[in-house]
């Protein structure tokens, strides 16, 4: 059963069309959401977190309609959300802040709430700094506080907007382990720029570009779209849309079609993603869509 059903969803901010008929389904497990800056990912995630309402189209979350106030409340009771840039009460300690979120999540019994707060603090590896004020934490630790509050109360649907931003490689690997465990028996929507994270974690990936779904399927299927389009040459190929020199000294070229006689190599998910949204990536802009 799909826990997330998005159908022809649109959203505009003034003249800017952030989402333009987005449609996809997602079920249990980890679903990766990829897209360049300004593609509309954060707008979509804010809708899935019931913070923002769509202008048009249909949303179903956990089998309920977030436009209906009673349904929305029930969705919120089973939702964990980490925004892209979460604001914190900086004078709170880690424990106090997560406890504060626990109250807003309607965890009524103080003793069991405190047990739950301690559990998630332990899960995100912040037990040693639970009494430290948030203003004294590093960026990566704050990120983990954000992840911790999202997991509070054992939510059925977890929406994570760039959770690995600011984490060092070791923390990222720990995070993969954590999300992998969270994804067992729950639905996790993971927005990220890290294609390696998607390749490692997600059986399902959705690529958003210019406010539309550019791809919806498995990472293997996305990778397969780049077959025969990645090749090695001693120099940059004129046919390449993107190229970079590898550690072996070869030039890895990515383009619409490998030249005849070129040595093609197995593409990665990143190659396929770059080919799919290459214009936005190479220009570094979000074009017409908002973040």
């Amino acid at each position, binding site marked *: 059963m799909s826990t997330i059903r998005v*159908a022809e969803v649109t959203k505009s901010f003034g003249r800017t069309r952030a989402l333009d008929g987005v449609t996809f389904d997602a079920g249990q497990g980890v679903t990766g959401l990829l897209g360049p800056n300004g593609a509309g990912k954060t707008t979509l995630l804010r809708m899935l977190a019931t913070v923002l309402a769509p202008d048009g189209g249909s949303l179903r979350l956990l*089998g309920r309609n977030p436009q209906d106030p009673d349904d929305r409340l*029930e969705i919120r009771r089973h939702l964990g959300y980490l*925004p892209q840039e979460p*604001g914190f*009460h900086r004078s709170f300690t880690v424990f106090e802040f997560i406890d504060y979120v626990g109250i*807003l*999540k309607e965890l009524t019994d103080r003793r069991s709430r405190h047990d739950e707060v301690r559990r998630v603090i332990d899960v995100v590896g912040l037990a040693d700094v639970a009494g430290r004020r948030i203003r004294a934490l590093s960026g990566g630790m704050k990120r983990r506080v954000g992840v911790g509050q999202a997991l509070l109360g054992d939510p059925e649907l977890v929406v994570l907007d760039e959770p690995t931003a600011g984490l060092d490689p070791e923390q990222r690997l720990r995070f993969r382990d954590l999300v992998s465990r969270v994804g067992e028996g729950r639905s996790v929507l993971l927005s990220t720029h890290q294609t390696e994270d998607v390749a490692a974690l997600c059986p399902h990936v959705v690529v958003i570009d210019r406010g539309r779904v550019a791809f919806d399927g498995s990472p293997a299927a996305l990778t397969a779209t780049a077959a025969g389009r990645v090749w090695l040459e001693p120099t940059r190929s004129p046919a390449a849309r993107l190229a970079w020199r590898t550690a072996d000294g070869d030039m890895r070229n990515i383009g619409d079609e490998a030249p005849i006689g070129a040595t093609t190599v197995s593409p990665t998910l990143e190659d396929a993603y770059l080919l799919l949204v290459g214009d936005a990536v190479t220009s570094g802009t979000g074009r017409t869509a908002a973040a």
Partner: protein
Amino acid sequence: MSGDLMTAGRPRTTRPLRVGGSGPWALVPDLARIHAVRILRHPVFLLGLLWYLLALFVNAPSKPYDQYTMLTALPVFLVGIPVFVAVNLVATSSRRAGVDDWTGGLPLPALHRTAAPLVASAAPAVVVAAIDAMAYVSFDGSVDIDVLRTQLACVPVAVLGAGLLGVAVARLLPWPGAPLAVAVGLVAANYWVSGPRPYLGAYCDFVVWSKNDVIPARVPGSSSWHLTYLVALCGLAAAGALLPVARRRWLPFAAGAGLGVAALVAGALQLP
């Protein structure tokens, strides 16, 4: 929303983790406790409290009128204004820190989130009441002017009102500079009304309500009606704070209207 996806997926069985039979109101005391600690630790409140304590015990007034004023009026200014500022800053901190941007998607309704700082506003009032009572005891025997219980009770109620007003301004006027404008406006209006003369017919010094009537040729007013007037203003501020977040807005609106009338009536009856 519409479309053929309306029938997609039935609601899942919920996990047993949330609100008990008492509903979200059971969470208000917990949230209020967090806000109360933040208010009591707020530097602006602590500064006002320090000022009040210094005035009370370091430079203790010795003349009857000064002692009387110290017990009944000065705390309202020395602590009341800082409480207004501190509570307002606490009540707006989620918005200013960007916490509201994402915690708006959490289930506890805005009504209950607003009720919590209203309840927490009682914390500084309790502190002021305790200190004022201690001061009264320490002045015992040396205050030549009788201090009525209702006059003493007016002090924490006025401080409570300052806190409630801080929450109301946070909810009704959510713009930068609005709290400052309100504070300056209230102080200026008070100064104008309490000018040397002619008092606009709407002001008289607290002290003339004493039994001794130390200022000759004045008829004492009613401190009981003054207390009623302050309580009505407190209720008015609370109703104002809840107005933007109540599901049924007519309730705080009707309560506010009733309390406004009560404040006007009590305000008139308190006068000499």
